[in-house]
């Protein structure tokens, strides 16, 4: 494996040709997907015989202890192979992440936590027998209400829960214009299409898991750590993933219990979470309370900005870092951010699409709208005059690598017809609809992660890419093929991509929007390596190479790749290794969202009429798949603004609306034609690809644009998301 160190800004490279990269190529895995040939975790059959099925029994209380657990009836039920509980579960390693290990004791930590696993010949038998496991509990009082637990919140043991620059308290107190508002966002559920799902199979002491997972090498680490077996003994396959949104960054109960169950049963085991279990048994995005204070001069220039966030989680778990964007988005001398964490007994909270920013911007960007009104200023202008081209906490010594927020705002305002917005709320009517427009800025931290790939020039001159990288519906297959095709001068149909197998080189995986930029850079690194090997074999020494039409040209000579590949082909491994450019430069992608809503003047129902996003995210590797990512993000942003909420029953301590009939996400009828515009940008500090994350940018700020449009339409400001009709209704004329 050859490392390609990325320590200095990228110079010109073959990617800049943009003959294939940067084009809206169709998904190369599309035909397989629409014809049912793309195997998701539960679809595998080859080499898996005599499969048994697992079903998880979840706790019926949120906190307390199991007194007695009687599995006799379940064990005697037809087809049942075994019932595993904390009483007979094998010893497992220490806590890894999320839901590993499982069945460790009689203590109940949250509602629907696994208390038993039933393995049977058929799925129906397992599900049926699960109801026959008799459990008696001693319940304990729990902590379920964030508004109350906020009082007990403490500074969490994390990297950087607080930041402070200048003197916020003084700066804010002295500011001529002051805004002090508190917003809340609810718990949210990922609710990806494909549930958490695994097939586990043992051969001797070797385990294979076909599982729906975003991060193959993390899965290997956590499975091995949980089962206390060497990492080499675990193989993870995750070639197609039906959405994850962060829920599948770490392994969940399905993977652990399938593995334990398969070992105990001596048969391969298939196990998926039922839809209701996704919400309570697995992870979710925690609710937040956010206080935002902004002080400006009379012209609207920010003097002081403060963002405090409270969230809750199980002991030892993470915060929702909803103030992180406030550290970077706007200027201002005196600043502070803080995160406080309350220990709660709701299910486990963890990353969900754009953790931090997605809900942080719901608050910050609505607050900016309130501020604009206070200042009697156009909300777009307010954002523009507070633009800053360097990290405002660190000063000009840490400039942004690129930052086109202002361009996004201006371009969007022009395209959207922002000038037609009536700044006075509640003025525009269309029949029974109150009509309004809103804007929200978007920022998403650009993260990168080392990523490797193997590129093989095969006999006949085609190319195979292998990497642990996953495609969670994002388009990884396609952009990785585009990268290699560009680097090696081949048409797309000469490139094959295989993903998600732990036997391939370790990759960045899919998460935090780092996947596209990092994993294509990994393929870039491997292709660089392959190009050198090819040059050597062709006898080109250190000459300037051109790869075109299946041939390599140099020194007036052309050699076909097929002839160089020989009988055995040429394989090259490469890994992109990121240096400290991320520290020296603030890196983020930016955007602006513009929304027009109609609010029914009688009922308070909100319907989106138009939604435009303008984004600047470095090189757009494939405008079609990138657009697709934005459309998904925008849809989720609409959901966050209008309907998504895990409803907490604060008496029983669980999310009540745990199915897709009751946990509302937008349906087609909620989403009009969405428009996405990408501004041209190359970020030479992000990677040799000069690209940045785009998947999560799409959700960041959208919900606030919707909320601001609702305010513009109605004159009613609701600070508790989601903005459902009942909250508007009270105050509608």
């Amino acid at each position, binding site marked *: 494996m050859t490392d390609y160190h990325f320590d200095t800004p990228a110079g010109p490279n073959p990617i800049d040709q943009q003959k294939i990269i940067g084009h809206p190529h169709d998904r190369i895995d599309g035909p397989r997907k629409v014809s049912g040939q793309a195997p998701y975790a539960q679809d595998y059959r080859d080499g898996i015989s005599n499969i048994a099925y697992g079903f998880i029994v979840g706790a019926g209380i949120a906190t307390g202890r199991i007194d007695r657990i009687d599995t006799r009836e379940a064990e005697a039920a037809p087809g049942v192979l075994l019932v595993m509980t904390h009483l007979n579960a094998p010893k497992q390693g220490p806590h890894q992440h999320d839901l590993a290990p499982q069945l460790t004791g009689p203590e109940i930590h949250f509602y629907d936590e696994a208390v038993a696993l039933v393995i049977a010949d058929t799925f129906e038998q397992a599900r*049926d027998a699960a109801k026959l496991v008799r459990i008696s509990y001693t319940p304990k009082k729990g902590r379920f209400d964030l508004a109350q637990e906020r009082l007990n919140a403490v500074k969490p043991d994390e990297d950087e829960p607080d930041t402070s620059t200048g003197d916020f308290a003084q700066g804010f107190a002295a500011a001529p214009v002051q805004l002090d508002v508190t917003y809340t966002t609810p718990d949210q559920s990922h609710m990806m299409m494909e549930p958490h799902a695994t097939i586990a199979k043992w051969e001797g002491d070797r385990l294979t898991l076909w599982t729906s997972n975003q991060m193959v090498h993390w899965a290997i680490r956590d499975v091995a750590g949980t089962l206390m077996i060497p990492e080499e003994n675990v193989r993870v396959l995750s070639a197609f993933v039906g959405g994850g949104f962060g829920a599948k960054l770490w392994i969940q109960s399905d993977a652990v219990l399938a593995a334990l169950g398969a070992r105990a049963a001596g048969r391969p085991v298939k196990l998926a979470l039922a839809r209701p279990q996704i919400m309570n048994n697995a992870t979710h995005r925690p609710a937040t309370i956010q206080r935002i204070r902004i002080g400006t001069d009379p012209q609207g220039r920010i003097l002081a900005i403060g963002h405090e966030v409270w969230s809750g989680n199980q002991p030892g778990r993470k915060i929702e870092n909803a103030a992180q964007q406030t550290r970077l988005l706007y200027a201002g001398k005196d600043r502070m951010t803080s995160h406080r964490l309350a220990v709660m007994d709701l299910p486990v909270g963890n990353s969900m699409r754009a953790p931090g920013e997605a809900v942080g911007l719901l608050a910050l960007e609505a607050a900016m709208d309130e501020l604009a009104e206070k200042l009697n200023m156009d909300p777009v202008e307010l954002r523009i005059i507070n633009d800053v081209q360097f990290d405002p906490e660190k000063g000009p010594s840490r400039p942004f690598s690129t930052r086109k927020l202002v361009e996004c705002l201006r371009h969007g305002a022009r395209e959207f017809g922002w000038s037609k917005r009536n700044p006075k709320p509640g003025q525009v009517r269309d029949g029974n609809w109150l009509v309004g427009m809103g804007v929200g800025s978007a920022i998403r931290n650009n993260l990168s992660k080392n990523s490797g790939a193997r590129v093989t020039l095969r006999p006949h001159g085609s190319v195979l890419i292998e990497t642990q990288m996953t495609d969670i519906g994002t388009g990884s297959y396609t952009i990785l093929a585009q990268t290699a095709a560009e680097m090696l001068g081949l048409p797309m149909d000469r490139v094959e991509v295989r993903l998600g197998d732990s036997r391939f080189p370790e990759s960045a995986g899919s998460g935090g929007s780092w996947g596209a930029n990092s994993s294509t850079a990994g393929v870039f690194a491997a292709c660089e390596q392959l190009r050198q090997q090819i040059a050597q074999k062709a006898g080109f020494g250190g000459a300037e190479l051109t790869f075109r039409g299946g041939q390599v040209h140099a020194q007036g000579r052309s050699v076909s790749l097929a002839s160089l590949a020989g009988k055995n082909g040429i394989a090259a491994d490469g890994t992109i290794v990121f240096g400290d450019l991320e520290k020296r430069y603030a890196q983020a992608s930016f955007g602006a969202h513009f929304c027009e809503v109609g609010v029914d003047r*009688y009922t308070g129902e909100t319907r989106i009429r138009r939604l435009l996003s303008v984004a600047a995210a470095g090189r757009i590797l494939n405008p079609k798949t990138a657009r697709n990512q934005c459309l998904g993000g925008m849809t989720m942003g609409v959901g966050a603004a209008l309907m998504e909420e895990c*409803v907490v029953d604060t008496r029983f301590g669980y999310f*009540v609306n745990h199915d897709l009939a009751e946990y509302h996400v937008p349906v087609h009828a909620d989403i009009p034609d969405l428009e996405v515009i990408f501004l041209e940008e190359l970020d030479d500090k992000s990677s040799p690809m000069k690209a940045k994350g785009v998947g999560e940018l799409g959700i960041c700020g959208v919900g606030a644009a919707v909320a601001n449009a609702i305010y513009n339409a109605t004159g009613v400001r609701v600070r508790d998301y989601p903005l459902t009709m009942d909250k508007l*209704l009270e105050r*509608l004329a």
Partner: protein
Amino acid sequence: MRPFTYQRAATPAEAAAAARTSGARFIAGGTNLLDLMKQQVETPSHLVDVNHLGLDRIEPTSEGGLRIGALVRNTDLAADQRVRRDYGVLSRALLAGASSQLRNKATTGGNLLQRTRCPYFYDTSMPCNKRKPGSGCAAIGGFSRNLAIMGVSEACIATHPSDMAVAMRTLDAVVETIDPAGATRSIPIAEFHRLPGNTPQLETNLKVGELITAVVLPKPLGGKHLYRKVRDRSSYAFANVSVAAVVADGIQRLAFGGLAHQPWRVERAERETRPEAIAEAVLAGARTTKQNAYKLRLTQRTLTSVLQEARA
């Protein structure tokens, strides 16, 4: 899902006779029953398939109305020319319900008998008097945002979620049945669904094994037919409040969904003209929770909007 026996009946009388034991259930489209069986909210020991009884036709009655077979699918009923022309409120209500996939399976009889969507009813770890009489009601004091405000009791505040039934209530539809002994009867829709009282587990006035064979619509009323369903998203959501209206010369019929465990209609209120006065009469005796009190205002405002359109 518990194991069960299955029988495909050939005639309505045979079906009813086969369902005379309390563990038996009819299965029509299965869109509600199967879900409940998977969760073990319902655990029938015997299923009687009623899909092959020849009850899938819509025929004119001698009184100038329509007889809708109990197995007519929601999609087909909504699309029927005569229904669209003469009973627009019904067509609109059907199309506002569920999704097209569900409507393709859902039947007229099954829709009337679908069970509440109260989330605690679906969760077998939670107390629920409807599911397990005497266990308590988790919704009172809990997540009740979309539950009933009219005709509720200390035992239960669930709504009946059907949109179709609300439209049928404005039309004074009549439900026709046959019982296990072969006796037939007609039940006015107003007397079909029960309010919870102390026995929320009893949801209709059907007897054990009584099969719905048809729903009869009286002759058309003419006039304007509207169905306005207010919900948290544009489609595929149950009503927060819905209003079915038939307004013609000298006729003003109004029924409300999302308020009670039956389509809510107060005939006395229909003599009023002002929306506020109608709403006051309709909502008299309302009992709300903190979470669902908004339905009072929502009902009144939705009604105002509907009447404005109906009278325009």
